[in-house]
């Protein structure tokens, strides 16, 4: 833990994430306006006393939209990643623990799915399911699951041969006990690290889908959709694009920094 605190990038990441978490949890409560309400007399204005971050093309308050949108954008990323972590870990741990031909079949299947580049896979699935936040989230979790399965499997494989596991086997512990008390607690580290970094990718893919019109649909306040709708008004008020764009970048960076710091903290072999 002290390792972690000494790492400035990790601290920066933690700070960013705290801000994001606050926005997600309390955003809608502290937002000054209804994010959908029009204020047609003050369209496309920059920051002002009434509207701290300015207004968009309908005169909607950008700060309020940002705060409400934190939930859609971040929850999307976290949710999709969590689903893929759970599903992927189940698959990967099973493959790693069971071994044998089941393991081979699963690995073949995973390789197949990993052969298709992420965004392409997501686009195909979203086209099939239809556009929308829920559909996009499902698509991203499906696309991420093979990667998470791979990671958890190799994590399990490397732990299987560790001394403490061998000791437990020698002691005659049941397979269930071994998995639950020895394997999983130690395998979790790399999974969490990878998951945290994946959240930033999920956020970016979600924003990209919103941008392409295949993710969140209007009038959602998802940040990628906000950027997409605002681009044609960019020259009249750069704030409409800059505000959500920077928000996406900050969120992605926060998860990235934090995840990297976690990785450095967890991995004892890494030289300082």
């Amino acid at each position, binding site marked *: 833990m002290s390792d972690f605190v000494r790492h400035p990038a990790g601290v920066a990441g933690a700070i960013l994430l705290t801000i994001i978490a606050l926005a997600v949890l309390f955003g809608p409560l502290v937002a000054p306006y209804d994010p959908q309400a029009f204020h047609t007399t003050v369209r496309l204005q920059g920051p002002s006393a009434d509207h701290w971050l300015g207004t968009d093309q*309908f005169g909607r308050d950008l700060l309020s939209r940002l705060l409400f949108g934190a939930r859609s954008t971040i929850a999307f990323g976290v949710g999709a990643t969590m689903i893929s972590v759970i599903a992927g870990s189940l698959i990967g741990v099973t493959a790693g623990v069971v071994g044998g031909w089941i393991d081979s079949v699963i690995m073949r299947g995973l390789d197949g799915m990993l052969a298709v580049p992420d965004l392409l896979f997501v686009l195909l699935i979203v086209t099939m399911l*239809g556009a929308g936040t829920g559909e996009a989230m499902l698509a991203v979790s499906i696309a991420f699951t093979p990667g998470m399965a791979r990671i958890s499997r190799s994590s399990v494989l490397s732990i299987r041969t560790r001394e403490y596991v061998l000791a437990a086997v020698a002691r005659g512990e049941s397979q269930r006990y071994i998995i639950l008390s020895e394997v999983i607690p130690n395998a979790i580290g790399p999974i969490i690290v990878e998951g945290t970094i994946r959240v930033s990718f999920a956020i970016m893919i979600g924003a990209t889908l919103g941008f392409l019109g*295949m993710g969140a649909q209007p*009038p959602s306040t998802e940040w990628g959709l906000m950027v997409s709708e605002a681009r*044609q008004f960019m020259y009249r008020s750069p704030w409409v694009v800059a505000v959500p764009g920077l928000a996406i970048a900050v969120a992605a960076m926060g998860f990235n920094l934090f995840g990297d710091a976690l990785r450095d903290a967890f991995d004892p072999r890494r030289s300082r």
Partner: protein
Amino acid sequence: MIKSLKQFTKTRSEMVRGMAVAVGLAAVLALPGTGFAQNETPKVGGVLKIAHSTRIATMNVLNLSGPAEYPAIDMLYSGLTRIGMDNHPHPDLAESWSANSDATVFDFKLRPNVTFHDGTPLTSDDVVATFEAIQDPARGASARSVLTMVEKVEAIDNLTVRFTLTVSYADLPVAVAHANARIISAKALAGPKENLENKPNGTGPFKLESYDSSRMTRLVRNDNYFIEGVPYLDAVELHLFPDLTAQSANYLSGNMDVLLAVEQADYDRIDKAPGSNALRVASGRFVNVVMRFDQKPFDDVRVRKALAMSIDRQTLVDVILEGLGRPARDNILSPEYAYVIDSPEIPYDTAAAKQLLADAGYPDGIKIDLVASNRPAIRGQVAIAIKQMALPAGFDINVKSMPHDTYLANYWRKGNFYMAYWGMRSTPDGAFTLLLTSDASYEDTAWNNKEFDAIVAKARSTPDDSERAQLYAEAQKLILRDTPYIIPFFQDVLTASRDGVKGWVVHPLNRVYYIESVWLDRN
């Protein structure tokens, strides 16, 4: 620069007299389009570069409908007649026409010595083949719906085509000016479909040199065009920029000469930019709210009226159109149409709307889904705005945006509450029979008003002008009484060209261009 246009159709008698004057007109005016400054002589030469943002997917003039496809086929093909900036049909391939006394038989005389781009001469057989293809359901021709009254098309001689109609229809010369009713050679129609899509062979002022739908389409001057002296341009290039920001950036930097369709949000910036001239034309183009008569809650006209009163039309024009349009009052005809009547203003009064809803049995308001396709984006924007505006009246509207093809497959003409989008038609009859009569081609509101149907049918074959005006007035009153659609505004058509481009205009129908009269003055 706003041009407003009146009197959409000629009176019937003028039409029937057959335009003997047309021959003279053809030689002098030649171009039913533009007026350039009197003391400027057009210079010959140069390449015009047009920037557009939707792909030219096909050159099959029978069924194309893309915004960038229309200028392309306008340059490649000619029709029997062509709509001018005065909104009257002018001679194009037909140098004159005449009809019998009750307008059930029309004879069109074709110009002599016209050749297709591949050299084959134009004869009446090509015209016959074209109109038979238009009427063939398997071809999916867009012009079919305006030519339902044509019973037979036959070649009387090499250069004369006779149309026999099932009813009296004085506006046939307008109907055959339809942008998708251009004349294709009989040989091409008999050949493989791919050739129609990719190797257009027309009689227009330009011919196709290269066609890469993902990037650029290039047309070059047809030296054998049947009108002397035009086109002035050596070549025209249509460049695709799918991203609107990149498109306008290329135009403003001078890389492109014309911006085919300007977005409302950019209009002001493009107009004020040095070297650029934006152009707007009032048009009868609209976004409409479809509410089906045969399902709750819109089976009760009070609910329809309540929603109509819950929409602040002027605000929609200000916010969504950036002022580049006019508020509308649910009449499908914009002020430019012939025979249009004044519609009473519909105030934005949510208190009264709430009361009406209560009267109709919805004291707690109505919760309902509003479907909007994402193409064009303005549908969703209007839907969102309506949602906000109608809230105080008790309408709890949930906007459901979706990809265009999902909408076409699942909601268009089936759903009970969705946003539609239509361009302008040439005549009131065109508008009514496209959407509002019981057997209209794209009827989707289940109005099925027999009285309206009867009026429209009668007006079609009425020779007397004032009687027609009266009939159309009654028809519009029915529309205003029952509100088959909510039409909140009419959207201007917007385009832009750079200094040095002369003669670039746009027609409110937004499917007609006069590029053969465009010339470049680059110095």
